[in-house]
């Protein structure tokens, strides 16, 4: 390690940090002494795959992308199991929970997000889990091994995956969701009903338009009462109602930001020495939860810090592509049918296939694909490029291979 090289300190070692390291290393330019500080003891791992770990479709070692040896091999100092508690912008130093102070020439905040808590009483009882980390996952798996009745709170992607994984343990799983239908940001009611149908087939029960009022139990959770008044005996609960940016470190240090740490198009915070990427930032008032834009943030930042290139980050419309309990989902643009939009809708209930395209002036403005997503990207391109799909209409819904003239 060359002391003369400027110091690049990365706080956080989640997926975006890992990606950022790759982007830096892929560029030949300004060399840095790099220090990565992670609160978890592991190296950078694919958090998305935790659902698969829970469902026993994979294992923790298989999802770790950069282990301790990797950092050593690449001359990167890795401070693991230790969160940064403060930033001293004057001295350009960060301070870890262990009291270690580390100087930086360039600081990158990639602190990510954490699971949102719900305003329910007795949330601190044992066997109530947030689903975020490897440790959470291990705890859930241990508890699930002996659980007979599990409550999952939240009908978004994470909650559904938790329910799916836990159902595989043999427990009776009940999922409670505040909205009238599942995945309500990505799906319309009909597609969601189809999803619910698929998951009901796995023995999962649903309580929609309902929320947890409070849990009960002595030390361990023993039951839950919902706002509807329903009471269930449970011996485990998982909260998966959403995420909250870990912005406090930056905000406390005086960086600007409302819900998260504000950055410009080049991932720079209000302090020119400090950059931020990932779920802890807000750009143009937007926060992030899906992985696609994060990769582009990592790229923009690496280009600036290493090559002094200015590659502005644009928050593009993106398509949501999910795989929920084995079922493919693709959605983009407007999801809910509303007055003024033309709806093309294809459904096969028995095969669990649903396609909906929303059109305005013969242009696609919304896509919901469930079960079969093969033409998703093509529809998405047509939407992005504002293509007049009028001439394709008779066969548009069946996909690209039915519209050869548009190829």
């Amino acid at each position, binding site marked *: 390690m060359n002391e003369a090289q400027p110091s690049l300190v990365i706080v956080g070692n989640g997926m975006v940090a890992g990606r950022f390291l790759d982007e830096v290393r892929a560029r030949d330019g300004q060399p840095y002494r790099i220090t990565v500080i992670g609160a978890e003891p592991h190296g950078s791992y694919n958090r998305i795959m935790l659902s698969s770990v829970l469902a026993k479709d994979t294992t923790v070692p298989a999802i770790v992308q950069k282990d301790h040896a990797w950092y050593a091999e690449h001359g990167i100092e890795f401070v693991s199991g230790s969160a940064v508690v403060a930033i001293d912008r004057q001295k350009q130093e960060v301070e870890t929970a262990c009291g270690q102070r580390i100087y930086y020439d360039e600081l990158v905040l990639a602190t990510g997000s954490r699971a949102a808590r719900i305003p329910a009483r007795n949330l601190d009882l044992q066997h109530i889990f947030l689903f975020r980390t490897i440790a959470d996952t291990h705890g859930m798996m241990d508890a699930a091994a002996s659980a007979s009745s599990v409550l999952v709170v939240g009908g978004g992607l994470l909650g559904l995956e938790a329910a799916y994984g836990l159902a595989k343990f043999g427990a009776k799983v009940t999922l409670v969701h505040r909205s009238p239908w599942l995945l309500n940001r990505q799906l319309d009611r009909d597609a969601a009903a189809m999803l619910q149908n698929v998951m009901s087939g796995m023995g999962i029960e649903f309580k929609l338009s309902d929320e947890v009022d409070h849990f009960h139990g002595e030390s361990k959770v023993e039951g839950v009462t919902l706002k509807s008044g329903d009471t269930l005996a449970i011996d485990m609960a998982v909260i998966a109602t959403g995420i909250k940016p870990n912005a406090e470190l930056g905000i406390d240090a005086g960086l600007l930001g409302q819900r998260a740490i504000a950055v410009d198009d080049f991932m720079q915070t209000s302090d020119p020495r400090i950059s931020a990427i990932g779920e802890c930032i807000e750009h143009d008032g937007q926060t992030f939860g899906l992985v696609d834009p994060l990769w582009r943030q990592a790229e923009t930042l690496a280009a600036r810090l290493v090559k002094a290139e200015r590659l502005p980050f644009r928050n593009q419309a993106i398509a949501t592509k999910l795989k929920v309990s084995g079922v493919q989902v693709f959605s983009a643009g407007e999801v809910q049918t509303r007055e003024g939009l*033309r709806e093309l809708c294809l459904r096969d209930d028995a095969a669990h296939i649903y396609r909906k395209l929303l059109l305005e002036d013969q242009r696609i403005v919304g896509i919901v694909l469930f079960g079969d997503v093969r033409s998703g990207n093509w529809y998405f391109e047509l939407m992005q490029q504002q293509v007049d799909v009028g001439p394709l209409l008779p066969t548009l819904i069946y996909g690209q291979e*039915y519209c050869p003239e548009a190829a």
Partner: protein
Amino acid sequence: MLIAKESHQTTCPYCGVGCGVTAEVDEQGKASVKGREDHPANQGRLCVKGSALHETLDAQNRLLHPQVEGKTTSWDEALDHVAERWKAIVDEHGPDSVAFYLSGQLLTEDYYVANKLMKGFVGTSNIDTNSRLCMASAVVAHKRAFGSDAVPACYEDLENTDVLILVGSNTAYAHPIVYQRIVQAKKERGMKVIVLDPRRTATCDIADLHIALRPGSDAFFFNGLLSYLADHNAIDFDYLHRHCDGFDEALDQAKVQVPDLPSAAAYCDVDEQQLKQAYAWFAEHERVITLFSQGVNQSSSGVDKGNAIINCHLATGKIGRPGSAPFSITGQPNAMGGREVGGLANQFAAHMGFTPDAIERVSDFWQAKNIAKKEGLKAVDMFNAVREGRIKAIWIMATNPVVSMPEANRVKEALEACDLVVVSDCMANTDTAATANVLLPATGWSEKHGTVTNSERCISLQKGFIAAPGEARNDWDIISDFARRLGYGDAFNYTHPVEIFREHAALSGLDNQRDRAFDISAFSDISLDDYEQFEPVRWPVNDANPKGTKRLFEDGHFFTPNRRAKLIPIQARLPMKPPAADELIMNTGRIRDQWHTMTRTGKAPRLLSHIDEPYVQIHPDDARRFRIQQGGLVQLENQQTRYIGRAKLSEDQRRGEVFVPMHWNRVYASRGRADALVNAITDPICGQPEFKHSPVKTRAYQAAWQGLLVCSTEVTPASDYWAKTTLAEGFAYRLADTQQPENWADWLESQFSDIKDWISFQDSEGLAARFAGFSEDGALRCVFIVAQTFADVPADQWLATQLGQVLPVEERFTVLAAQSGDDSLSPGAIICSCFQVGENQIRAAIREGCDSAEALGAQLKCGTNCGSCLPELSALVEQERLQETG
């Protein structure tokens, strides 16, 4: 029975050409057919309908057991029931209160037994036949001119002639093999072909001259011709002097009405130069054949038209010589056989009329108990009598008058109200069967066994080579059994058709001093072996002509009392009912691939691939006037009945006239029964109805939606308009209605209540919606597609291949696309039914250099089997050429 695993020589049951068919049955009992090489009619050729005969032999919709009032019974019960009711009716109301209505589809032996029973034993001549709708005019014209109902020429003469005039005959479609022979001969010998038809038909493809004359003006044309012949020194006075009477009177009458070319041109509404050319060819050439068919016969003055034609041939001696004759070509396989037997109300028996001599002769011969002594009621009058209650029992055999008669809805009502309606048929689901009190299962082609006579007087055996299904019996056997139950057993103890044929042959020769043309006395004691190996032969076949007779009247001997032919003075008349201001004239006729009311041909998928819906061919100017779009639907109305068909805009049609196919029935279309719109106006002499000229109210059908339903089971779609086609594994329906159901899914599920597994596509704007239903095992049962316009309704060809298939569950939604996912071209509308070659393929080949029908055949095989599509191939080549140069 008559089962074997070898090949059988038989005869096609469709048109009057009467082609020989070699049928083969393999060890599995599967039949195949090909043209019989040594049959004089076809010499190995077969048209598309004939080629598909083996595809119509399945048991679907066959009538298998007797039924009385909807209940299956034994034969004994059913026939006892009929005999008892019949006897009671005859006892109470007399023999004229009962009737037989027969068919040109029956074999001669069936006809003979039916005629014998009615005229000799029941004691009534109320026995008529669907030949009344077809040949009655020609029959009477023949009798007036020749003294006998005899076609002078044979098919060979069509090939040997110098000038062939086709009058009211779309030979290309209605008699495809005769047409093929003409095409070949024209290519080899280069004769002139003149087509007289208001419509430019496929036959005009080979015409040197197409005269699109005013509908029904044929007699004006031929009266004009007679005047022209007289003015141009073309009369054969020597022939007239030796063999004919009545020339002066006939010419005088012609001269009064149509003295010259301008008057003929005005009456016929055609160009004078065209007429002059046609007349000159007739006058100048030694050999002239005038081939006429339903365009002449189906008229309120059909007999006169026939005689106007014959007059011209007699006046010029162009008859009784090779390549020269008036030639009436029959529509049905055995119309001629019925006429030979005398199975019509105004004939008695075996070319004899109701003369005292004949009555005595036949009465003795039959040992008749109750001989009929006067004419009975002809078809239209017969059904009127049924409606008025004068006829209380009617037995209908092998025909479908509820579709084919004029004012067919009134026929339906009459039958529904009749005390006793017996229907013997091979099909269970005909429109007529639906009105029956008693249904009797009869054998069909390939099962029944007996003789038929074609348009050139050629008798052939139609052979039984497959066992009859269920309890079906031969018609002669059913009638004989019935006769026994009426108490006439002695005269009807037949055990094999050969016995009937011998008796028929004997009667034809009985006291026949060459005064009856029909004489087959040479067969009076034909052996069973000879009968079973019957070699096609043209009558007369008697001592004088043991090998049959190719051509009649070669010696100038006719069958009138003085043995001289008679020219008839003709006062030409136009059709009876002119159209009102908001009406067009509806002309009816055949299409290439269907036969009669489709009860048999409708079962063969490829025969519906050429034309799959009832249609209305209309001139573009008329279409504009009525705001009718190409591919839209047209509604025609008359007799409080609607016909709905797909609009075909075409300049082949004269302005003011539409053409509709005659075939569709209620099994194949909701509103496709064209004959229900035909007025029951008949020729006063022969009783043949005017099918070719019905004024009809015309308008664009205001379809709120158009649809396609493809399904594996038969349904009756809940829409005002539907037309069915048969697919290999199911059915396809084109649909339309003026009203839109509130909910498509409900509408569909109500018709397929057993299907629980549906997939759907719906468009919130416009009308587009598509559904597919699957059975429990995942097989595709049904696809329904609805669209705003017909142009947006996809073809059924690809869907037809998917019916019954179990599709991968993740792929099956794509059936709603109604096409396969790759971009390979769909063949388009099938033009060549034999090889299933479509319009798209053909056009593509033309653009790639095929510049003739032959070249197309070489590349795509289209047109190289039956050749029926050759005119269309040529037309496509021409269209593409015009597009290229235009």
